[in-house]
């Protein structure tokens, strides 16, 4: 039996697995999700695919305590506006952190997580979430 939502999920796989957006080479603005046209340069704009590095900081956040059904196992959890180093902002869940430790300006990096599943037998949707950058032995901070 054909399942609802499969084509929608499939269409977004490339962009949500790797934070693949685009960049207008005319005004040097980065977009995520990718735009069909640069809203600033209009017909003078030239867009090319761009894979974001996945590093940024928390611009603003909220702690979710009343969650939709798919996320009830995770409450309380953090949803944030993340400002990527390229200047683009996006909304994402922050994981691997206690909600009370989250603060504006916190450095975060993209990680790969399960977003939701269509029931126990349906397709599983994966994509980006963010986590605090972690300690790496031998890396100069």
């Amino acid at each position, binding site marked *: 039996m054909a399942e609802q939502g499969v084509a929608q999920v499939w269409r977004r*796989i*490339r962009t949500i*697995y*790797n934070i693949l957006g685009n960049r207008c080479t005319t005004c040097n603005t980065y977009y995520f999700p990718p735009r069909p046209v640069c809203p600033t340069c209009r017909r003078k704009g030239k867009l090319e695919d761009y*894979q974001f590095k996945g590093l940024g900081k928390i611009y603003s956040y909220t702690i979710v305590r009343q969650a939709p059904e798919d996320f009830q*196992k*995770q409450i309380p959890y953090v949803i944030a506006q993340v400002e990527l180093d390229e200047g683009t902002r996006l909304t994402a869940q922050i*994981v*691997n952190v*206690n909600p009370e430790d989250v603060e504006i300006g916190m450095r975060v990096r993209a*990680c*790969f*997580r*399960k*977003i939701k599943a269509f029931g126990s037998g349906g397709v*599983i949707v*994966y994509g980006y*979430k963010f986590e605090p950058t*972690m*300690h*790496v*032995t*031998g*890396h*100069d901070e």
Partner: protein
Amino acid sequence: MVGIVGYGVYIPRYRIKTSDIADVWGEDSARIGKGLGVFEKSVPGPDEDVATISVEAARNAIKLAQIDPTDIGAIYVGSESHPYAVKPTGTIVAEAIGCSHDLTCADYEFACKAGTAAIQTTMGLVKSKMVKLGLAIGSDTAQGRPGDALEYSAAAGGAAYIVGLKNIIATIEETVSFTTDTPDFWRREGEDFPSHGARFTGEPAYFRHVGEGAKSLFKKTKTTIDDYDYFVFHMPNGKFPVAMGAQLGVPPEKLEDSLVVRQIGNTYSGSAMIGLARVLDIAKPGARIFVVAYGSGAGSDAFAIKVEDAIEERRGEVPTVDDYIARKTYVNYATYAKYRGKIKAM
């Protein structure tokens, strides 16, 4: 010569103490940890599975290897907890790490040694020049029936190894396997939890296969214990690898560095591969490593590995095994049961 171009690991952040599990089931909490040699185990978050763990480990491996992911020609993911019964985990990994679509890919299953079987396959493909680079992953979110002995050790984590011929950080000098039909541990289709033969998992299963694999590798390479600086054995618990080392006459200090099982439990397909990664994190160039992975059912894959000079300049870019072990948050049994889907009413 064929070898490891890069490696990476991932261990989830949550931990549960084995003493907390023992308290729930009325066992002697002080005795359990010591008896098993497992004091805490890693627990995956509710949004983590073998695909997410594999992707994180593979991204670390690519960064350490300093390779272009489009040069990867083969991906094999070994696990006994693939998120889909039908639909490969490997395709999710390939897309998430930015591989070309011109590659071959499959999922492997051989209890806890599916990941090392993947390493052997990629070695063959690389040596025969069918592919430039191969990616082998061993990763699991292991299941243990509530109250069963397995629940104290069944953990989550994974390791990814990129195998190639150039710019290698460790040479794989030789590999051998030992395989028989031995039903010591299994999970039937549709069952939530595995079953095992209790004491039968020891002598005729783990010790026979790891022991025979080790002897076969010594024979084939014409080497002895003295030729190796580090030993890594599959770690179903903290006791078995130590007992195996004692049986073979391995000095305990040569085994010590690989025993990650004490802090994170048995990560199944990730177990020996994370143990090897812990050694690669600290070994000096020229060091030789002897690895034997074990998979129930049953078989062992043994590897003789020599660390190369290039390893030192690649360190410091991705988290080490110890970095992941140190990043932890304890959960109680109720939270663990919720995260692992052990509460059927939810």
